[in-house]
């Protein structure tokens, strides 16, 4: 919210149950929540497991950071003026090795080279002092 930041795109407002994710991201670690009772990963983070167990016993597991592009959309216009100069950029849904999907940007590649099934790995974009957005780039 502070005025002096040059980054003026939307930033996540942390909830208590999502804070561990963003704190890990700030330390350049990708973590995914998992139900302690069923061992099932889920994403996005919730206070209670969205499974039948409804447990609030959640553990955060360090992810491998490897994923595959499940689908993508090359954006030629952004949602607001803050994105001026960015398009074309890629918004994608990737499926991580742990089996959850995450929305992200695919970076370090010509948008038209992105394909469904492409192997990608996490990179960390420190967009502000407080917020790091996990993004993905092609492997290798």
């Amino acid at each position: 919210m502070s005025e002096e930041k040059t980054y003026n795109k939307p930033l996540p407002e942390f909830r208590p149950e999502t804070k561990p994710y963003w704190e890990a991201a700030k330390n350049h670690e990708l973590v995914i929540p998992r139900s302690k009772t069923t061992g099932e990963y889920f994403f996005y983070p919730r206070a209670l497991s969205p499974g039948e167990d409804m447990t609030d016993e959640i553990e955060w597991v360090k992810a491998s950071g490897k994923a595959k592009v499940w689908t993508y959309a090359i954006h030629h216009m952004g949602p607001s003026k803050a994105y001026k100069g960015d398009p074309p950029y890629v918004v994608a849904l990737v499926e991580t090795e742990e089996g959850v999907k995450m929305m992200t940007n695919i970076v370090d590649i010509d948008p038209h080279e992105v394909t469904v099934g492409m192997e990608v790995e996490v990179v960390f974009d420190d967009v502000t002092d407080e917020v790091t957005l996990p993004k993905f780039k092609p492997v290798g």
Partner: protein
Amino acid sequence: MASKIPGTDEAREVLKKHKIVIAGVGETDQGKIPNKSSFHFLSEASKIAIQDAGIQKSDVDGLVTAFSLVEHTFMHCTTFADYFGMKPKFFSSVAVGGATAVWMAAEAAMAIASGQAEVVLCVRGDNTLSGISSSGMVALIREMCHAEFEFPYGLTTPGGYALAAQRYLHDFGATREHLAAVAVTMRKHAANKENAMNKEPLTIEDVINSRIIAEPLTKYDCSIISDGGAAFIVTTEAKAKELGIQNKLAYLWGMGQGYSHQYLTTLQDLDQIYNAINTSGQKAFQTAGISQKDVDIAFLYDCFTITVLLTLEGLGFVPKGEGGAFALEGRMEIGKDLPVNTHGGLLSQAHLGAMHHVVEAALQLRGDAGPRQVDDAEVAIVHGNGGIVSAHSTILLGKEPLS
């Protein structure tokens, strides 16, 4: 074949007993109409529908509204009741995105069947184009996507549908032409709809070569934004007779909902979407005791071209992945296999959720669709989807009472 859904036999008995009908419809002008407020359009559409039914405002004892994208109110239905000057016995605001209009009809039916009201006005209106503009609509994604885990990545509303479209193209080897064909058919139909915004003919090439918004979608894959209002009046056959309503009646034969996801992040695969559409449709089909082959006309939510293909397939009119070929062969046109959105839909007529889809379905069954009239139209399906193909609702309407 789908397995038997519990409750549909009971639902059929309820609908047979009450003979719930759409007895009046109304549409205002649609387009860029900068001098009218959201509540002005709601009022005007209500007045037209009441006059179409030939009843008095005081005959209306129930009200179902939705929401406004421009004029945010905490209690939309009662805010409008106050503005319009009515004291409904039953009131409700439905807010399930593009599934809203279809479910407004269902909500009115449930209210009537449970004795809450006898004559329910269902109305939407908004000055979306003048009030929030196209860029505002592009940014509307903020209301639908995850604020923390999706929105910071620059997703737009068309971008959300482009994600679904890209996966669809991948899974079925479908092409840009398949998507574009939907827009071409909608435009063809809009030519004969008096208040349609876009009537000039459109070709496949026009669609593909129009401005790229979010690949694989271009400008003409995206619905238009408009100002306007629409309304319909739900009552029973008996009450319609008592009130002396002269219109032919469109009878409610079945209804259903289906839920897939809210956030694309939690979507497993396209089957999850198909299953939600199918669940919604099957509930309606089984309640009516009919199947796809009995349907003469379809009104499918077309906020983007991709939703029509997913819906055609999910409802079981064509196998998965074959909606594109069906569209490309012109089989959704009036006079062909299954006329879809004979009024031009959200892609060419105007955008007010599925309100115009419901209105046009009733007009077709009444035989009042003028130059767009489909011969022997006896059964119509209307399907809405809210979110990014996430929340679904279906109604089936018949020209005759459910038997």
